[in-house]
């Protein structure tokens, strides 16, 4: 059978065939691996891949899996069972597409007012969490159409703190 997976934003097909009681043959692209595995606990497997032993650890991560091997982390999604992810995804630049705190925080300062023109990456709100301050930035060029918070407000991921009307003609990607 085939698994259609995604790793580092890249789709990959993994073909799997049981060759005997102990061994499974996996093919990824032009590479072939003979694997024997044993499960040690809910998260921990020991695999022998083409004769070489390795410990791997698998944990949940939203709809995908978080895989740890020798200190390296990998996020693997199953394209056949994607699950729902309503959270706004980060773009390649790492800037989320709304002005929202990454974790429960308190508003420390508001740097803009309705009517201000802002450019992508410009600081608009400062929030404080775990005693550290973070500046949230405008995800695109535009004009501030509304500020929904005041200094001292408690805010959560998902709350939109500053509404920014996108400048026409810029950054034409559809949301």
């Amino acid at each position, binding site marked *: 059978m085939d698994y259609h997976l995604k790793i580092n934003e890249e789709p990959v097909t993994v073909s799997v065939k049981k060759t005997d009681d102990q061994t499974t043959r996996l093919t990824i692209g032009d590479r072939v691996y003979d694997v024997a595995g044993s499960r040690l606990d809910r998260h921990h497997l020991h695999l022998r891949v083409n004769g070489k032993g390795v410990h791997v650890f698998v944990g949940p991560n939203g709809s995908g899996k978080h895989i740890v091997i020798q*200190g390296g982390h990998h996020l693997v999604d199953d394209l056949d069972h994607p699950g729902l992810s309503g959270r706004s995804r980060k773009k390649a630049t*790492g800037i989320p597409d709304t002005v929202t705190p990454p*974790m429960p925080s308190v508003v420390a300062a508001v740097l803009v007012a309705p009517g201000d023109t802002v450019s992508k990456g410009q600081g608009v709100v400062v929030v404080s969490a*775990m005693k550290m301050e973070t500046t949230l930035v405008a995800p695109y060029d535009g004009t501030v159409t509304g500020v929904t918070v005041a200094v001292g407000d408690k805010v959560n991921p998902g709350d939109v703190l500053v509404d920014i009307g996108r400048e026409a003609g810029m950054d034409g990607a559809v949301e």
Partner: protein
Amino acid sequence: MFKKILVANRGEIARRIMSTCREMGIATVAVYSDADSRAAHVLSADEAVLIGGPEPSASYLNMDAIIDAARQTGSDAIHPGYGFLSENADFARRCEQESITFIGPPSQVIQSLGDKITARTIMEKGGVPIAPGMTRPCRDLDELATEAEKIGYPILIKASAGGGGKGIRVVRQPPDLAEAFASAVREAESAFGDGAVYLEKYFETVRHVEIQILADRFGHVVHLLERDCSIQRRHQKIIEESPSTALTPSLRTLMGESAIAAARAAGYVNAGTVEFLLTPDLSFYFLEVNARLQVEHPVTEMITGLDLVRHQIDIAAGRKLELKQEDIAGQGHAIECRIYAEDPENDFFPSPGTLEYIREPSGPGIRNDCGVYSGVDVPVYYDPIISKLIVHDQTRDQAIERMVKALKDYVILGVKTPIPFMIDVLESEAFKGGEIFTHFIRTHFPDWKPGEKNRDLALIAWAMNELTEKPRTHQNTGANPIPEPWETLGSWRLA
């Protein structure tokens, strides 16, 4: 000797302190907030007292509740750990008034050293070299600007009530001063309840080298060598080691003597750390005294073989410190990595949540001071420290290899950690070469992204996990699985 010690802290340090108490046959009391009812430190203690809501001010900073808990349980001493109330002179004074021994310096000493400006003045008088800068607090931007011109840019704005890297801003040019000032004051207000700041000369290329001291009540003071804490991010230490690659034996002796002079000038008792800045020409300047046990104290314990918490308890109980300076020597090399629930790919934002699974590294020369267990929550309300991983080996090169191996063996699922980042830092030529300054991370790892090694292995792991998982009736994604088209089509037939 104390019969019962209340540990006024949480997480890994609370567990570590209780560990020594158990060795000494002293009963332990944990205090906890609503967010920590199942926390590891609570489960490690003989008794536990709920002291308030999750916000630190309601619980771990709530002096009344903590003193009540001590009285209620009949504790004869309180160990404050680090952070929270450990350098709160009012709290130390309250303990003194209630006849509960505060395991640390006298309240008066905490008071004078806690104000960074007073501390600088004491040191200046005591003949300890201090960094060029202000020796009075400032709340006025214009005054600050004048002083900054006098000292000469670049300068550092620092909170006078501060510590732990909070309320610090580097200013390289005059136009940046106003915003940096406002931001530093806000952070200082929030972290310490006091927005007063002062200025120091900023050295672009500098090392942060600190000396551990121990002083008993009878005036005997020794130093326990240095720790190099130059690997920092946003003024917060992330990797510490001893010995420092910059110190020669004679420089070590000079700095040690300076640290002892600093301790005497302040009338210090118990364990403390004197922090210095070391410039490339090997001049050193007093930075501050941390009047408490520090996060990175295990580094010193590994090279000296001493238990600093045990010495703290002994000194607080009135015992004489038997250690002689000539008997103190470091053996081998130790390195510590701080493991926080932080996302190294997202500017190290805290990554709170449920820590699904943890598998700690072990082996010769490997120590992990851990504050969590599989299934516990890492709450949003506190510093997200998971553990401190310390290794010790014969040489620095071997210690680096041992740390890399330990990091690769360390598995944490459910929250993000900087483990992959730490591995890259330790394997870098720059770190191995020992040319370490406080701008190390900024210079060598400004926009770190994880490597792409083991990609096929990860896919194989996913597939083998799927094949060996116990069959389930539903995918546990927490949402309705998207139905396959032919499940919803109903019956139909090709014409």
